[in-house]
């Protein structure tokens, strides 16, 4: 089915999220929609899926104008969405999830499970989407769950598939598998809209690339014509440095020591299983790994947020295994949490308040239990300038800021304290290229000033760009450390997927 968008405009108050967007995707074509976060990709997708109605413009399917009043109408018109956050019920089987909302029934309203079962088997075979219809979704890997989402759209006869950042949660190998599926879908005549901000992937799979910035289409290209560099500068509107310029590390003595650390996750399973490593002063140690292999719990244990079940964490000579978050903070640990709006900021609080979230009760911001608002505000204004936080004033609630500015507020807060260790979890998740560059530069500067940096990231590019030393985490266990440069992307990818160092031909020098 041919999909065409003509002059789509969507406003929220004064803000124009989509400004006269034109797109055209032919039948059997993969169109990549490339843009920074906040560029308006999600808004456009919500227009397409019937969640928002455009203020102007029209959607054409095979040349006929389509109007969607709700997501159900978009689905019936043949548009299938695969959201970044899966819309699946973990306790249901694959077949039940696929049926949900479009249940076919036999006489007397009984569910026709057999038919759903057969349909899934057939679709799986046809497109290489291997999934067991009887498996419980909660027990599947993330990659498999994504396949269920794709099967779900196909079972509803989607002719246009919209994939929103589908590779964000996948290992490099799983990403390859997804691309294989996308190719077979293309071969069957489906139109695919691939939304992403990852340049390499766009070049690998797209037939056509459309770049949007600040709600507008700023350019289009084909993978043959454009390089990563071209696309990146189109995306941010200027030349970008994709690699981080940093001098070689000059590591000092170990500052953060983790010995045989064991941590449980929220459901009481072992998430970190006897992990040992050191981070030295003036060094960035990156923990690579696919989301959900224990990195979150590792970071939480080091910062005092999760209980240490076994082993020891210490900063210099101070044992902080049993420390509260406050004590960890006072031991000199700065923390950039992975979920910034949940853990790092209070959305309804002003920038000024968020800048002192963990130091408001210390000098000079308070005295004898009374806050010194003048100090808090003037210090916030200074740091907004220093850390390039763009907002009307320091009284603006952080919730209204862009992701990049929100992260800068956290970075400003955490890096202005007296720190020995920085625990940075997914510090650039969801940020635009400009902000990523900025956060990276700040982390390198902190390293050069002598901080021990523990970087936890699922972005291989980030790990490769920043790390002086790399460990890979898989199912709660660590492999490494490896000096950066010793491993290729592919080798790290294999370690992330559970291969042993011997299998990929590097000596396990741990």
């Amino acid at each position: 089915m041919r999909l065409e968008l003509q002059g789509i405009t969507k406003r929220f108050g004064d803000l124009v999220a989509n400004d006269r967007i034109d797109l055209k995707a032919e039948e059997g074509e993969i169109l990549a929609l490339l843009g920074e976060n906040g560029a308006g990709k999600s808004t456009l997708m919500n227009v397409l899926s019937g969640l928002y109605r455009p203020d102007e413009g029209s959607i054409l399917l095979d040349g006929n104008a389509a109007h969607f009043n709700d997501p159900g109408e978009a689905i019936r018109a043949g548009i299938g969405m695969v959201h970044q956050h899966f819309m699946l019920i973990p306790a249901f089987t694959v077949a039940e999830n696929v049926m949900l909302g479009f249940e076919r029934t036999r006489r007397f309203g009984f569910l026709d499970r057999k038919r759903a079962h057969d349909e899934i088997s057939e679709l799986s075979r046809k497109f290489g989407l291997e999934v067991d219809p009887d498996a419980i979704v909660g027990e599947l890997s993330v990659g498999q769950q994504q396949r269920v989402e794709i099967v779900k759209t196909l079972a509803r006869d989607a002719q246009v598939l919209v994939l929103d950042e589908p590779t964000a949660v996948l290992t490099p190998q799983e990403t390859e598998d997804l691309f294989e599926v996308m190719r077979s879908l293309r071969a069957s005549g489906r139109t695919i809209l691939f939304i992403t901000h990852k340049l390499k992937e766009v070049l690998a799979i797209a037939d056509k690339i459309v770049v949007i910035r600040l709600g507008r289409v700023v350019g289009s290209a084909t993978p043959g014509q454009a390089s990563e560099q071209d696309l990146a500068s189109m995306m941010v509107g200027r030349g970008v440095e994709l690699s981080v310029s940093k001098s070689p590390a000059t590591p000092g003595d170990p500052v953060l020591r983790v010995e045989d650390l064991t941590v449980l996750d929220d459901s009481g399973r072992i998430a970190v299983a006897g992990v040992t490593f050191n981070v030295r002063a003036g060094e960035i140690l990156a923990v690579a790994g696919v989301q959900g292999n224990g990195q979150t719990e590792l970071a939480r244990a080091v910062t005092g947020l999760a209980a240490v079940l076994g082993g020891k964490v210490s900063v210099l000579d101070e044992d902080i295994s049993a420390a509260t978050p406050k004590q960890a903070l006072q031991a000199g640990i700065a923390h950039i949490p992975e979920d910034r709006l949940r853990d790092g900021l209070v959305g309804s609080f002003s920038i000024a308040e968020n800048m002192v979230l963990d130091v408001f009760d210390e000098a000079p911001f308070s005295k004898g239990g009374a806050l010194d608002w003048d100090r808090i505000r003037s210090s916030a204004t200074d740091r907004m300038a220093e850390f390039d936080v763009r907002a009307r004033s320091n009284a603006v609630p952080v919730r209204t800021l862009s992701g990049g500015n929100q992260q800068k507020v956290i970075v400003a807060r955490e890096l202005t304290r007296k720190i020995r260790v920085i625990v940075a979890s997914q510090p650039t998740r969801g940020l635009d290229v400009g902000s990523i560059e900025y956060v990276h530069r700040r982390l390198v500067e902190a390293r050069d000033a002598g901080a021990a940096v523990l970087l936890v990231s699922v972005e291989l590019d980030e790990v490769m760009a920043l790390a002086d030393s790399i460990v890979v985490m898989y199912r709660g266990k660590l492999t490494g450390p490896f000096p950066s440069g010793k491993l290729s992307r592919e080798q790290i990818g294999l370690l992330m997927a559970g291969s042993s160092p011997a299998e990929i031909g590097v000596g396990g020098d741990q």
Partner: protein
Amino acid sequence: MSEVSPESSGTEAQRSGDDAPGLLRKISHFLLSGNTLIITVLAFFSAIVIGAIIIVLATPKATGAWAQFLSSPGNAFAQSWFAIANAYGSLLQGSLGSAAAISETLVSTTPLMMSGLGIALAFRAGLFNIGGQGQVILGAAGATLAGFLFAGLPPILHIPLAILFGVAFGAAWGFIPGILKARTGAHEVITSMMLNYVGLNLLTFLLTSGLYQAPPRNQAISKTIAESARLPHLLGPSLRVNIGIILAIVFAIGVSWLLNKSTIGFRFRMLGANRDAARVAGVNIRRQYILALTLAGGLVGLAGAFQVMGVDYRMAPLYGGTVGFDGITVAILGRGSPLGVALSALLFGAFTAGGRTMQVNTNIPLQLVEVLQALVVLFVAAPGVIRTIYRIRLARAGERIFGGWGG
């Protein structure tokens, strides 16, 4: 992914750090922010209109005239108008029409303001204090105990001592749900609500105990507090208004300072706005639960203490009535800010005082004012209803005064 979305913003009252010199500017800022003025005025207006219908229905003369509508339509309207004007006229007369009326309004305002403050304080920390009724009883019981036990002290010592007892007893009743939540995770809504029943029955027990019961011991009424523990009247002995209202205003200012200018308040607000971030920033959440509910209990306890020290001088069964629950509506209408609480307590105090006059003059039951209060709060809490009725389009959607039950 952070994408553009319609701006949604918290209530302005929850924000601090905005400069607002002068009380007047503060009041106007509070009323105007987040379209609260329009919503509040229209909520009030809507409640009055619905109340008018109830007045007509509750007046036999008016309903009789409507039964004869076809023969004399003018009479139906005239009788209705007469009934409505009479009822609302008395309401106004009884709340603001004379020095005595104003005195009664302020007398009713005092306990509402104190219980509203305690409940609002807990709300701001993300906690639901439903135990107001029990805390009022305990606070009054504490003040009463000190009031008759330490007879003979000079007022300058006796009054603060009785207030201290009131705070301590109320705080104890807030501390229990606090420690239960901190230690066992028990939800404060359940525990504080159950403590209301414990408080009620404890009162019944105390009123028949040797310690409290007034001689000659055949009635469940407490001993009367000593003269020296009674709050001085403000406008002479004939008017009941006493320094309780002044103290309540002082406490409102104190709570405002605590929330906006102190580290304790900063922690409470963090906890209320984002519990996870508070934990990550090093706040000891369990300690805050205990502290917030204890302080809240102490403030609500003062509602009972001021009532017994300023108005009643002794306790009877079911003491405090619904003041502990009315505090919840006052806190909601006041949007959890001390200034808002003070203003809505004043409104409800006027309703209560005026309602009594209305009942005497027109035979319309006092319950009408409770219906009016409930309607105002209902419309304010569900602004969507008002927006739909009056077809106002507002830029800001999803205004949220309090978090829900969760956790």
